[in-house]
C-alpha cells in the first residue's frame, strides 16, 4: 500500500509542477527575448539590458554568453531572437540564409601585447606578426623586428607566440590583419574564428581572453593578441602594447582617437547590409585591428509583437544605448552617425 501511495503523491506533485511551469509564460504580461553569443558583447548586453528593463518592464531579455558561432547558429535556427557575434556572416552563409541581418551595435578593437620587460611600445607590422605565428621569425632580435625598431635593444631570446585555442572573434580580426597585410598568410592560413595554426614548437594555445592574459603574464618573451575589453587586466600585469603599422604606413597605438579614425574611414564605405571588415582600414591615423560587433537577427519573426520588441530594443542599443556611459566600461566605441542610420534601416526590416 505504501509504495502506490508514494507513487501517486509523486505523480500528483509532478503534475502540479508541470502545470505551474506551463502556466508561468502564459501569466507573464510581456514578451521574453533571448540573446546569446559573443563573450565580448556579453558584458555590454548585461549593462544595456539592466537599464532597458527598468524603463521597459513589459519585455524581459535573457542574456547568455556562449560564443559567436553559437550565436550565429542559434539565431539562424530561431532558438534565440538575438545572436551576438564578433564576426559578420560569410558570403556563403548569407547565400544560404538570406533572411539573416548583420547589425553593428558597437566598435571593438584588439591590442597586440608582449612580455618584454623594459620595452613599452614595440613597433610591429602584419608581415612580422605573420612570420612569428608561422614560425619563420623565431627570435626577438630577428633583423625584421630590429629594422622596424631602430634604437631599441632587442633580447636574444626565442619568441613564444600565444594564440587562442577556442573559436574567437579575436582570432578572426587578428588573422584578418595578417591576411590583409601579408600575402603569404592570406594564401595559406586565410582568416576565420579558428585558424589551423602552423606548428611552432614553443607556441601556446590559451583558452579565452583571461587565459591569454595569464599565459602572457606567465611567459616572458611571449606575444599575444588580446581584446581591448581586457586592457585593464593587461595594464595591471604590466605587459607591453605594440604600435602597429597601418595601411597608410604609420605606427599607431589603440587609443580612442585611432580607433575612431578607423571607424570614420570605413563609415562611408559601409554597405547597406553592413558586412564589412574594418581591419587594416585606410586613414593616416587609423588603428589597423578594429571591428564592428554584430547582432545577428532574422528578418521574419514568429509574431508581430516579438518583432516589435526586438526592433525597439535594438534601436535603443544603437541610439540611446550607444553612449560612453555604457560603452566605456568595456572599452567599446560608439558607432559613427552614418552607421547608426544604416543599422536603424536594417532593424526596421525585422517583421
Amino acid at each position, binding site marked *: 500500500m505504501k*509504495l502506490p501511495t508514494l*507513487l501517486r503523491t509523486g505523480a500528483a506533485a509532478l503534475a502540479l509542477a508541470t502545470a505551474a511551469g506551463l502556466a508561468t509564460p502564459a501569466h507573464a504580461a510581456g514578451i521574453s527575448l533571448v540573446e546569446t553569443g559573443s563573450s565580448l558583447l556579453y558584458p555590454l548586453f548585461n549593462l544595456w539590458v539592466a537599464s532597458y528593463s527598468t524603463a521597459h518592464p513589459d519585455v524581459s531579455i535573457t542574456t547568455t554568453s*556562449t*560564443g*559567436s*558561432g*553559437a550565436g*550565429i*547558429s542559434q539565431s539562424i535556427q530561431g532558438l534565440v531572437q538575438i545572436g551576438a*557575434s564578433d*564576426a559578420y*556572416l*560569410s*558570403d*556563403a*552563409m548569407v*547565400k*544560404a540564409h538570406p533572411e539573416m541581418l548583420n547589425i553593428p551595435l558597437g566598435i571593438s578593437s584588439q591590442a597586440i601585447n608582449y612580455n618584454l620587460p623594459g620595452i613599452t611600445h614595440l613597433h610591429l607590422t602584419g608581415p612580422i606578426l605573420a612570420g612569428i605565428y608561422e614560425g619563420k621569425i623565431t627570435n626577438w632580435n630577428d633583423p625584421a623586428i630590429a629594422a622596424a625598431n631602430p634604437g631599441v635593444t632587442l633580447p636574444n631570446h*626565442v619568441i*613564444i607566440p600565444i*594564440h587562442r*585555442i*577556442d*573559436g*574567437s572573434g579575436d582570432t578572426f580580426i587578428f588573422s584578418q590583419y595578417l591576411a590583409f597585410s601579408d600575402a603569404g598568410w592570406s594564401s595559406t592560413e*586565410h*582568416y*576565420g*574564428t*579558428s585558424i*589551423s*595554426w*602552423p*606548428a611552432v*614548437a*614553443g*607556441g*601556446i*594555445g*590559451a*583558452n579565452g581572453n583571461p*587565459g591569454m592574459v*595569464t*599565459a602572457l603574464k*606567465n*611567459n*616572458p*618573451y611571449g606575444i599575444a593578441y588580446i581584446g581591448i575589453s581586457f586592457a585593464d587586466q593587461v595594464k595591471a600585469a604590466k605587459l607591453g602594447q605594440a604600435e602597429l603599422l597601418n595601411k597608410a604606413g604609420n605606427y599607431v597605438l589603440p587609443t580612442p582617437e585611432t580607433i575612431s579614425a578607423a571607424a570614420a574611414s570605413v563609415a562611408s564605405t559601409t554597405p547597406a547590409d553592413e558586412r564589412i571588415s574594418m581591419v587594416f582600414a585606410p586613414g593616416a591615423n587609423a588603428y589597423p585591428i578594429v571591428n564592428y560587433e554584430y547582432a545577428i537577427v532574422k528578418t521574419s519573426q514568429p509574431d508581430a509583437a516579438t518583432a516589435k520588441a526586438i526592433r525597439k530594443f535594438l534601436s535603443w542599443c544603437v541610439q540611446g544605448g550607444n553612449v560612453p556611459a555604457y560603452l566605456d566600461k568595456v572599452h567599446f566605441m560608439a558607432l559613427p552617425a552614418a552607421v547608426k542610420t544604416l543599422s536603424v534601416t536594417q532593424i526596421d526590416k525585422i517583421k
Partner: protein
Amino acid sequence: MTLRPFRLLVLCISLMIPAALCAVVLFLAGYAGQAISFNGLHFLWDVNWNLGDLYGDPVTVNGITIPPGAEYGVLAFIAGTLASSGLAIFIAVPLSVGAAIFLAEAVPVLENHARDRLSWLPPIRPALAMLVELVAVVPSVVFGLWGIAVLVPFLGHYISPTGNGYGLLAAAIVLALMITPIIASTLYDALLQVPKENRESAFALGSTHFEVVTKAMMPMVRSTLAGGIVLALGRALGETMAVLMVSGGGLNMLPTSLFSPISTIASFIVSQLDSAESDPTSMSVKALAEIAFVLFIITLAVNVAAKLLSSGALNVRSRKA
C-alpha cells in the same frame, strides 16, 4: 498473466538507458557519415587539421561540399589523448598504490585504552579514506584553475627548458591528480576485503610487514587494481576542461617532448565547436562528430577491458571462499 503496472514502468525506465546510448551512437555515426566517407581511413593517420577558409566560397570535392582548404586529420589528437592519459596513469599508479596501502595497513589504529581517552577524535582511517574520495568529486575545472595558476608557472620556472610550462606534462599531472583517488579508493576497498587469515598467517610465518603487503595481499587484489586503473584511464581519456586550460593546444604537430603543446580529442572538440558552427557547409561539425566517434570507440574499448578485468577480480574473491 496479470498486468503489473509497476513492473512495466520499471522496465520502461530501465530500457531508456540503453536506448539513449544506442541513440547517441546512431546519431554520431549517422551525422558523421558524410565526413567519414569524405575523409576515408587516412583521417586516422593524418596529422594536419584545418577547418578551411570558412569565409571563402565552398568548393565541391568528390561530390561533397567543403570549405576551401579543409583537411581533417586526427592523429595529433589521438596521440595527445593517449600520451597525456598514459603519462597520467604512470604518475598516478605509484601514488594511489602508496595511498591505498597506507590507509589499509599503515594508519595507526588506537589501542583500547588510548581509544577511551581520545574518544573525541574522529576515527583516523575512515576520515582519511573519505578525504581521498573527496578529491574524486572536485570538479575538473578546479583542477584546471590550479593547473593554470600554480602548476604551469612552477613547471615554467623550474623544470621546462624553454620557460614554457604549458603542454603534455602539465596536462598529465593535472589528469594524474584527478584519477589518483579513483584508483586509490578502489584498491583500498579491495585491500580491506583480503581475508584476515591470509594476512595473519603470513605474519605467523615470520614475514615482515612489507612482505605481508607485497606477497600476501597485493597478489590477491592485482586484478582489482588493473580494473581501477582502466576505469581511471576512461576518466582521463574523456577529460575536457582541465586539459584544455593547461595543454597548450598543439595543432598540426605530434608531441616530441614533455613540454610539447598537445590537444586531446575531448578538449579539441570543445575548442573547435564554436567556429565549426559558422561553417556554411556544416562539414566542420560533421568532422568533429567523427572525432567524437573515435573517442567513443577508444573509451568503449577501455570500459570493456575494465569489465573483463573486474570480473577477473571477482574470480579471485570467490576462490578464497
